[in-house]
């Protein structure tokens, strides 16, 4: 252990700071870690609210009956506790305040802190040393020790551990206290540790000359050169001495105490700051306030400033956030529309749109931070599966002064990873350019589809309140049809009912013959017979006419037969049905009856069929007894047979 930077320090009974020296193989400077978030476009408080709440959401226990609660408490450390802070929290720290700005912060008259807490969450569990190998959670190590470690939470909000940087950025002391309670090795354990991410520096060390320090410092119990958190009774006792809110008996969760937070003076009085924080939670986290299936909100929130409660407004009742709540409801309901990319065809996500009159509202700081510059609402709230607000994307301006629309777009789970990679560390935008080319198109497609949907909603307003004019436009439509070549018009092919248009030979038009049906045009001789027997064809002579037979009405159909042969004649009779007379009723007991045949020489042959000798000359007759009040269909079949 002699080569490790901490090896010189003997174990001490009291908690103290340890400063990290550069190991020979190098390490990240504290500034670098702090700035992993980049230069956020949003103000620091907003970033903090978003990042912390995301982390809390990801850390939820998901136990039945346990709500995730997220709180922000801004307060001044009470006089009784302040001395403890000054006495204990400077122990072992670098002497130079430039190297360790906590000195400055604790030297002020009052110590200001922002406690960011979550409950109903797992707490920072797992081993406390980064080199411990475990299959279990590594939240403590990830938060306290490691730098920029990817998170593995499925469809989680904060894809990278960069988010913690905001705590140190917000602290003018670049220092936080981490107070957590978690299930560890089968029981609940409280842990308390301090952490600072200040500035790297060089300092002379007794007996070793100049030494370089990374600017990372931990406050806790030093053991084997490593700062370990205070645990259990020790932690509880220390928390009490520092005036930190204790955990309930079965409670788990984490409180990160940001020491000496940098609060923009423009925000005004502490009361105004409280309102700003509450409204920021409203604008940035409203999806988490909506009731879940069981009717409970996904997360509950509180904000206090100097003990004064600043209630977070109800999104369903607060204008104009309620427009987004309605759009969200539509996104999850039948009015939702699916946005898909064209090539390749992939479902990108679902969109809910709500357009309405926008009631007058006052533009608050929190709304400005959310991306609103005036009281027009024409935004789509973008989110991934975790349903945390990414940003409010501004769209086509509303078409009328008081009109507006709100939208909510949620990425399809299948696409979540792609969009997560498109987010900067602050998770407040989707940048297509940070993706490989084949994935860029998805992000671009969303932008495009959203614009289309927004234009459509403006376009749709076009028709509202304006009845179309009753004017036949068919001709005009045809005039322009060359611009939509290849699209189908509408017409007969949409006919709902099978339409059998009458043939030109319809008897009612021509008085002659019904259409012959395909495949049944003639009565040809059978194929085998055709080799040796002549073909015989029936040629009708006119339509059937009425006559009397034995004093009862009868029909006569005259016909000729071609081909010299012995012929078998068959009469096939039926009743026409349906309005086009195309149907056939052959089943009833009251079918028309073939009475018999009359040969060209006047011989009568009774019965439905007859075997006759045809010489190809003369007119034959079929005699039919029709069924009363029906239309009779006559078909004569003739077939040559061997004599």
């Amino acid at each position, binding site marked *: 252990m002699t080569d490790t930077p901490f090896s010189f320090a003997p174990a001490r009974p009291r908690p103290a700071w340890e400063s990290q020296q550069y190991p020979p193989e190098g390490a990240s400077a504290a500034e670098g870690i702090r700035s992993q978030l980049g230069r956020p476009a949003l103000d620091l408080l907003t970033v903090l609210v978003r990042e912390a709440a995301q982390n809390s959401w990801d850390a939820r226990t998901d136990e039945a009956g346990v709500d995730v609660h997220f709180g922000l408490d801004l307060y001044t450390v009470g006089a009784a506790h302040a001395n403890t802070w000054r006495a204990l929290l400077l122990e072992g720290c670098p002497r130079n305040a430039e190297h360790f700005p906590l000195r400055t912060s604790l030297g002020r008259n009052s110590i200001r802190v922002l406690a960011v807490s979550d409950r109903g969450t797992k707490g920072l569990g797992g081993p406390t040393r980064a080199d411990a190998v475990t299959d279990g959670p590594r939240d403590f190590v990830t938060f306290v020790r490691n730098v920029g470690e990817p998170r593995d939470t499925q469809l989680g909000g904060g894809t990278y551990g960069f988010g913690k940087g905001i705590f140190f950025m917000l602290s003018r002391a670049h220092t936080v206290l981490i107070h957590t309670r978690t299930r560890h090795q089968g029981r609940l354990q409280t842990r308390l540790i301090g952490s600072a991410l200040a500035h790297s520096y060089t300092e002379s060390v007794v007996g070793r000359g100049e030494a370089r320090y990374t600017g990372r410092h931990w406050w806790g119990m030093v053991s084997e050169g490593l700062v370990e958190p205070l645990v259990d009774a020790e932690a509880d006792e220390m928390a009490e001495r520092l005036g930190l809110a204790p955990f309930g008996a079965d409670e788990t969760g984490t409180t990160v105490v940001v020491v000496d937070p940098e609060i923009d003076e423009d925000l005004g009085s502490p009361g105004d700051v409280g309102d700003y924080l509450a409204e920021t939670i409203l604008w940035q986290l409203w999806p988490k306030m909506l009731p879940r299936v069981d009717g409970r909100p996904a997360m509950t929130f509180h904000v206090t400033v100097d003990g004064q409660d600043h209630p977070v407004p109800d999104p369903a009742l607060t204008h104009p956030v309620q427009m987004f709540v309605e759009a969200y409801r539509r996104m999850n309901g039948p*009015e939702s529309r699916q946005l*898909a990319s064209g090539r390749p065809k992939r479902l990108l996500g679902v969109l809910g749109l709500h357009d309405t009159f926008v009631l007058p509202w006052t533009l608050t700081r929190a709304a400005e931070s959310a991306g609103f510059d005036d009281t027009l609402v024409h935004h789509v709230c973008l989110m991934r599966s975790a349903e945390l607000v990414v940003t409010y994307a501004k769209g086509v301006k509303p078409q009328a002064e008081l009109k507006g629309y709100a939208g909510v777009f949620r990425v399809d789970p299948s696409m979540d990873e792609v969009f997560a990679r498109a987010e900067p560390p602050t998770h407040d935008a989707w940048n297509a350019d940070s993706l490989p080319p084949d994935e860029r198109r998805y992000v671009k497609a969303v932008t495009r589809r959203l614009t289309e949907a927004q234009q459509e909603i403006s376009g749709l307003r076009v028709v509202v309140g304006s009845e179309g004019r009753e004017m036949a436009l*068919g001709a005009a*439509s045809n005039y322009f049809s060359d611009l939509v070549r290849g699209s189908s018009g*509408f017409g007969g092919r949409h006919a*709902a009912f099978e339409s059998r248009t009458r043939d030109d030979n319809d008897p009612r038009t021509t008085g002659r013959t019904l259409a012959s049906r395909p495949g049944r045009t003639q009565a040809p001789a059978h194929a085998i017979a055709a080799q040796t027997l002549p073909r015989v064809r029936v040629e009708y002579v006119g339509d059937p006419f009425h006559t009397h037979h034995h004093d009862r009405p009868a029909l006569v159909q005259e016909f000729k037969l071609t081909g010299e042969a012995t012929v078998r004649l068959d009469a096939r009779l039926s009743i026409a*049905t*349906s*309005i086009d007379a195309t149907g056939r*009723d052959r089943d009833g007991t009251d079918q028309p009856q073939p009475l018999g045949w009359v040969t060209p020489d006047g011989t009568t042959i009774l019965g439905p069929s007859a075997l006759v000798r045809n010489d190809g000359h003369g007119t034959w007759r079929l005699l039919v007894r029709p069924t009363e009040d029906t239309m009779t269909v006559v078909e004569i079949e003739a077939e040559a047979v061997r004599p």
Partner: protein
Amino acid sequence: MSVLYPRLLRGRIDALFEEYASVVSPAELTVRASVHDDAAVYVATGGTRVLPDRLDDLAASVRVLARQHGYPYAATRTTEFDVALARLLHGTMDIAPAEAASREVWAFLSLVLMPDVAWWRYPNPPGDRVKNTDITRHVFGRLWWRAELVHDTTLADPYEALTVLGEADFDQVYARRAQIGASPKIVRNLLLVWRSLRDSGELNGVNEREAFRSMLTQLRRVVPFLSLNALDDDALVAELDRTARQAVSAIRAADLA
């Protein structure tokens, strides 16, 4: 001024039907319900395209009605539901008959606008209930047409004739409508004639359904030469009455024999 409704392109109809085939419960389709589909088209001219709000309202009213009949759980009192839905669709859609004859319009309603209701009414539906194959079988289309064929705006309740026949018998009329060339006037009068026969006891002792079908068969036989559509109301009622009585006596004679 009639309202133009979206028509779902055929490829999309089959694709959606296949997609929904694996659905376990109609409730899963609630999230698929939408007022919009990329593969929906309109006839070029002839009316005003329906507004999404209006489609939304229509779907909402249908769901309210469905809820009264069990939705989203198993459907109850479906006959009553169908009659009420027929009134609702016909009374609110403002759709021209030629538009309503488009099977693709109805496919839009059953596959895009209200797949949840369609699948609730007919769980695991055969294609003809929800696709564009047969309007006389379609979950919504057949009801609109049922109302169109019987409604009479001169009555206090224009849809009073909806309840004269049971579903199965009406389906018979409906299926044979084209064959018997039945205009709404004929269908309406047919129902009235049948009801008055029933009320006057003429149908006592016969299987009513059998007699009704026999009447339709008779009608199919006479329409090749009788133009019912050319007749005034009185003459029409007289001919329908004659045909109905013939059918009933034929049934009685057959029963005796």
